[in-house]
């Protein structure tokens, strides 16, 4: 039987008067891979930020059955939740190695270096270079590597494929598949494009539109749903 790792209940996020998310409920199971699809402004990043405790929200978030609403972000990281954001939250003046080491600040340790370099051998070559000098693809690897340093039980990735060349995205998808095989980690990705990297990595998905969940199901079947065709293609 599948054991529940993350449960989000009736979650809403408001920025002042503006609604980013309303009434979101979803679940992520142990050793599973989920994706949340949504176009620009649909509230994908707000969902991840709320789960990490980076933005105030209404509703409830449970991790391994425990309510974590009152926990600050660093305590959620200590429990085993990790978020690889888009590139802006790296430390550009620090070396690749320092960025990775900071990922193990709360949990994990230096021994995780080997694992990360095993997934991304390219990073070992540039480990002494400052992250700000690297290309977007490399920075994305640092971002995922840093999140992996804490040995997370839930790894969330915000728009893995954004701004990257298709070859790089393909390579990252392969690494994610490898991580799923070798680590006891569940994945929660958010993506704009249906049938992008997530269709390779994830089996189940949700679709967000204007802050509400409008569909869920197997990734390959999502595009068949009328509501998804309307949201993405403007046809029903």
């Amino acid at each position, binding site marked *: 039987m599948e054991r529940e790792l993350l449960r989000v209940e009736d979650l809403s996020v408001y920025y002042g008067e503006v609604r980013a998310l309303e009434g979101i409920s979803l679940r992520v199971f142990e050793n599973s891979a989920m994706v949340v699809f949504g176009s620009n402004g649909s509230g994908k990043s707000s969902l991840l930020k709320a789960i990490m405790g980076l933005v105030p929200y209404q509703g409830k978030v449970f991790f391994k059955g425990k309510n974590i609403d009152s926990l600050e972000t660093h305590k959620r*990281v200590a429990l085993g939740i990790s978020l690889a954001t888009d590139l802006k939250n790296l430390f550009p003046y620090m070396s690749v190695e320092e960025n990775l080491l*900071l990922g193990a600040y709360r949990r994990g340790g230096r021994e995780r270096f080997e694992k990360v370099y095993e997934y991304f051998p390219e990073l070992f070559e540039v480990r002494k270079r400052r992250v700000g000098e690297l290309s977007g693809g490399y920075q994305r690897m640092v971002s995922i590597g840093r999140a992996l340093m804490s040995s997370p039980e839930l790894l969330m990735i915000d728009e893995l494929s954004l701004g990257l060349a298709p070859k790089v995205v393909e390579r990252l998808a392969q690494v994610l598949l490898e991580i799923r095989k070798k680590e006891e980690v569940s994945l929660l990705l958010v993506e704009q494009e249906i049938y992008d990297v997530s269709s390779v990595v994830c089996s189940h998905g949700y679709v967000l539109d204007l802050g509400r969940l409008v569909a869920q199901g197997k990734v390959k079947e999502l595009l068949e749903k009328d509501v998804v065709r309307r949201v993405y293609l403007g046809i029903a």
Partner: protein
Amino acid sequence: MEVILQLLINAFLLGGFYALLASGFSLIWGVLGLINLAYGSFVLLGAYSAYFLHQKGFNFWLVLFINLFLGFFLGLFLNRLLFLRLLRFEALSVLLLTFGLDVLISNLINLFFKGDVRSVSLEGLGGSFFLGEYILPKGRLLVFVLSVFFILLLYLFLKHTKEGRAIRAVSMDRVGAQLCGIDLGRTYDLSSALAHSLAMFSGAFYGLLQGFTPFDSGFITLKVFFVCIAGGLGRVEALLLGGFALAVLEQFSGFYVGEGYKSAFALLVLFLLLAFRPYGIFGVRLHERA
């Protein structure tokens, strides 16, 4: 030529001290994002504490450590009481509130010590060493060596320890730091404690180098502001460069134009820097950081 070299030697010795003087100010600015206009009054507290304790017969080296501890706990207390609340305020409110704190501390010092000019004097530091034709005043040399030593310690702490890396991470990206599991509140506590520790520690040196009154805090804050603007925020090396820039400016304008014009020149250059190179003479442009 001899005069120019002597002025450069003086500037070199003074620049190291200015770097230490500004290190705490830079730490609070970089990590908490607060411009603390009361910083100079904490340096003065350090100078008066050194003066008072030394008068009471305490060994000067012991006084330095007492200042370090006093500053540490004062910084911790101040962070909990004031700075954490100020983080939610707009920049102008922060400037006004820290300015108010500066006035309060200056007047409290005046109440206890009166407005006379004081200084800390140590036996054996009165004379000078001679390097050929050039003079190296013993007091300035000692302060320079200790300042550079403590700047080096600060550099090693920030670069090679877990907590130091956390402080640097918070100064670069607060969200990124939280995602690494860094506790922002604890990092702010440590930064403020360390900053005020450095302020009071360098205050003892300030008292060794020159006379002071309770109302000098504005001048001191101006100096550290200059060092941070000239060097640029975010790196310990920048403090040394900013410190030397200020010292060179003061030494040369003081000699060629007149002692009374030193601050005017520093202000003029500060104005030009803010207008044309707000990221510092040696600093990195903000858009290059992204």
